[in-house]
Structures are given as C-alpha cells and as structure tokens.
C-alpha cells in the first residue's frame, strides 16, 4: 500500500468483516496471519512491552521479506535481520540500549545494503500511525522540516492554506499487521494497558490485522467495571492469546522489569558476534523452544519473581 492511501486502507478494513465475537486463539494461529512481504508494526517501545512471544512465533514460521515498523527498535530487530526475515526497517532509532552501544548486526545489514532503513523522526513516525488510526492520508506537523530526513521517506511539504507557512505533511502508515502485548483483555479483545501507552492504540487502529498477546485474559465483567481503562476496542482486534511474561526479558509496566543481565549475556554471547551470534542465540531461545513456558525457564529460577518485585518497587507498590 502506498503511504497515505487511506482509501485502499479503509477498503481492506471493510472487506475484512472483522469478527465481532471471541478472539482467543493460539500463538501459532495468531502468527499465522502474517504473510511474506507484510508491513508489520510492533507495539511497545524499545525494551518496554515488546510483544516478544508473538515475534518469536513469527520467526519460527519463517516469514520473509517483511517490513518492520516500530518507533524505537531494540534487539528484536536484530533477530529479524539475522533470520533474514526483514527487508526494510521503518523506525526513528535502532540499537539495543545506551550501555550496549551500536548494533553490529544492524550496522552490517544496512551498511552492506541487505536491509533498507527508512528513518523518521520519533514524532513523525508516531504521526504516521496516528494518521492511519484516524483514517486520513496525512497529518501536518513541524517535525522534520529543514532536515535531511525529509528526503528519506515519503513526507511532503506544502504551503499551509490557513497561515501561508511551510508545513510538513506526514503520510499515514497503514501496516498490514500490528503485533502488540498488553496487560489484560477480555475474550472479545477489549484491551487494557497500564502505565505507558506508547503508540499501541494508534498502531492497532491503523493496521489491517491486529494480533495481541495479553498477560492475562480477564472476564468481561472486569473490563466493564473499569471501561475508562480500556485502550483498544475489541472490534479492532483479530487474534488474542494469553501469554504471561509475553514481553520478557523486556519489561511490562508494573509487572516485571527488563532483565538487563540477560541483555548483557545476549550481547556478549550473541549480538557482539554479529548475525551468526544472533542466529546461535535464536537456535537456543527461539527455534528450539517453541513453548513460551520452556522459553521462560531458560532465564533461571527466581528471575521472574525478582523482576516482578523490581517492577513493583519502581511503580510504588513494592
């Protein structure tokens, strides 16, 4: 789909007859919605609320030619590069996190021309998702004006018909698939997110297909008892899977902190060795560990509980 093509985006949504009922399914079936060549938008931000369980399942299903869109990419981006699953990355930032420096895998892939990096400013990418969520072709902004980022993607400038000033028009992004992790949802897909909402709501509304993992599937009564906490309406969701610790070792606000020791280990044993190192890591943690519980057991006894306590302390419930 061309950037900003709200007409085609809406036609796809209308043609889809999104189911109105129960959305519960398995990780395997949920990930099965992703097709080769799709534009996949990833929720959360950097190492917060990354839908890792779903992303791992997408990797296991060996998709190819994907475009990944995420405002700040963390090491999940390295996984898709190492697995040769991604052709284009649409983002404003790609690394692992300050202490771990530049991403060697990313650098090699982009510098070598295997992966195209379409860079936007952080706000501009947010506005791309928001324009998509609003069902319009673009949103006006001052972001990116004058910078060389204007020449990278498909943003345009125009003279504002109200003020006569030059403004940037940031084109909508309508991903084929959104992949999100939330705190809780009812079986109809009404999703609640605690703490940082990041860009998940806009991503969900902008995408043709929406796949969600939730820490917990709760009763419809529970959702109805606090409807003002529901962020994503069920009618926007296609597939829903209960996956406790579905973002681990990334964090989930209030529930568990990121496991930075594992990040150190990932970088030392995997990422710092380049794509080959990452592939070895994937063999162990992803391809040979199809069940999320088995995957979690690799992090060592007590780690999950400790990270849960750390989270509670940070949000003032410790």
């Amino acid at each position: 789909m061309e950037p900003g093509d709200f007409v085609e985006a809406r036609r796809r949504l209308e043609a889809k007859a999104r189911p109105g009922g129960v959305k519960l399914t398995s990780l395997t079936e949920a990930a099965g919605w992703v097709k080769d060549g799709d534009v996949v938008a990833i929720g959360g931000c950097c190492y917060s609320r990354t839908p890792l369980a779903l992303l791992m399942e997408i990797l296991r299903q060996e998709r190819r030619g994907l475009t990944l869109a995420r405002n700040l990419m963390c090491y999940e981006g390295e996984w898709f590069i190492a697995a040769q699953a991604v052709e284009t990355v649409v983002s404003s930032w790609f690394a692992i996190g300050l202490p771990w420096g530049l991403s060697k895998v990313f650098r090699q892939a982009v510098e070598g021309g295997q992966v195209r990096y379409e860079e936007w400013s952080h706000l501009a990418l947010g506005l791309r998702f928001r324009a998509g969520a609003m069902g319009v072709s673009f949103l006006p902004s001052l972001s990116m004006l004058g910078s060389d980022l204007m020449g990278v993607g498909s943003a345009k400038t125009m003279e504002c018909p109200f003020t006569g000033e030059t403004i940037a028009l940031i084109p909508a992004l309508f991903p084929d698939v959104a992949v999100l992790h939330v705190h809780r949802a009812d079986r109809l897909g009404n999703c609640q997110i605690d703490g940082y909402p990041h860009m998940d709501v806009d991503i969900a509304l902008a995408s043709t297909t929406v796949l969600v993992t939730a820490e917990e599937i709760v009763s419809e009564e529970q959702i109805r008892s606090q409807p003002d906490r529901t962020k994503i309406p069920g009618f926007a969701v296609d597939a829903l899977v209960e996956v406790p610790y579905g973002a681990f070792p990334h964090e989930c606000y209030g529930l568990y902190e990121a496991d930075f020791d594992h990040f150190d280990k990932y970088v030392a044993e995997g990422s710092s060795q380049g794509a080959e190192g990452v592939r070895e890591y994937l063999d162990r943690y992803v391809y040979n560990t199809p069940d999320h519980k088995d995957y979690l057991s690799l992090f060592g006894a007590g780690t999950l509980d400790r990270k849960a306590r750390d989270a509670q302390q940070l949000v003032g419930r410790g």
Partner: protein
Amino acid sequence: MSYSPAELLAVIAARQLAGVKSVFAGVGIPLLAAALAQKTHAPDLTIVVEGGSIGPELLPGRLPISTNEMRVAHRARVLPGITDTFLFAQRGFLEVGFVGGAQVDRFGNLNSSVVGSYDKPQVRLPGSGGANDIISLCHRVMVVTMHERRRFVPRVDFITSPGFLSGGTSRRDAGLLFGRVSQVVTNLGILGFDEESKAMRLEGLHPGVSVQDVVEMTGFDLLINDELPITEPPEEEELALLRGLDTERRFI
C-alpha cells in the same frame, strides 16, 4: 574539588536551567542535569521524557537507561502516549530541550543518522529518535556533548536534527518558526551562535581550558567572543547531589 568531564557537563547544563519551568530531557547527562537543576536552581521545573513521562523522580541506583521504561515512570505525575508527549512540545508547552549527536556543525545542525552517505553509509548510527523533534519544537535547545574534533565538523554528513541549517534565516525559511539552538555546552566551554549569521561562537571557557584548546578540538572556524568568562567550577553541593542521584556512576 575534582570532577569528571561528565560531571562538569551535568553541572553546567543544570545551571542553564535556572528559573526554567519545563525541560524535555533524554536519559543520561540531560536527565541528571534536569534532576540536579530541580534540586538547586529550578524548583518549579517539570521534567518531561519522550517515552511519555511527566514529572518523574530518579530512584538512585535505578537510573533509567532508556526513555521508555518504568525507571523513567517512577513517581511520574502523567504518563501520556509518546506521540502526545512530542505534541506538547509542538504546541509550545516545553521550554528547554536537550539534544546530542555524533556530529555537530558550525550552524548547530546535528547528525545521529549516518557517517557517509545515507544510502551507502560508512557508519549507520541509530537515528534521530526524538532529537529532530526536540530541536524543532521546544522554545530553545541545548546541545550537550563532549568537545572532540571529529564531532565538531564544518558540515554534518546528514542533518538529522536541524540547527540553523545554512545559517541566516534559513531555519525560519524552512518553516521552523519556533525554537532555536541556544547553547552548546561541552566539556571545554559554552558556545552560542551569532545573531545574524547563526555561526557558532565561543562564549565561555571552563576552568583550565584555553581558547587554543577549544580551537584545536573544533573542526571548523569558530567565532570567538571578546569576553570569555570562566565558568565557576562545580560546587561541592552540586557534585554531592549529582553523585547522590547516580550512585552507581553509570553516567558521570
């Protein structure tokens, strides 16, 4: 009183926030500077972090390493979405922003995208993140960076974050009606920009630093003020507060 270059940067940056009401700060030195300012020269300062956190407090020993994690949400008053957080800046609510970059040029443009060409980069850097937005949208922006010759280049390879573009009125002509790079705070001194040409100008030196030191570490012809006040060195209280925040010496 001995202090590291990073401590010096944080203390000087904090002082620039005297009386400021709101600051858009990234993790590391900027966030430490903002937290220090709040405890000293800017009691009414509201700290805003791009992951979507307004008014957080730092938990010593648990400093955030990304702008989007629970550590930045600690004791926050509001946790808006990321897009909404940047839109606060676009609307004009946020006074001062902090940015950095791999390269900065004589017009204050910053590059955090590529060394070399965009399509065939020699080094692919992580990218803008919020830097482009902060420099385009806040009332004024402070570049905080180590002063190195390879970093202070005549012309950045790629303008990730627009300073004064090609100088003169070019920033405004591009549609950037608000904001400006007001200062460049380095470990050697404080720099500003000529009102007309918008070329970078040395405006102050840190203790023990000579003009020659700065010129040698700068890869382009720098304007130099006639008067170059010497920075008051970090005070004991400032350093104590700073070290009390970053107890692990993660950033300082």
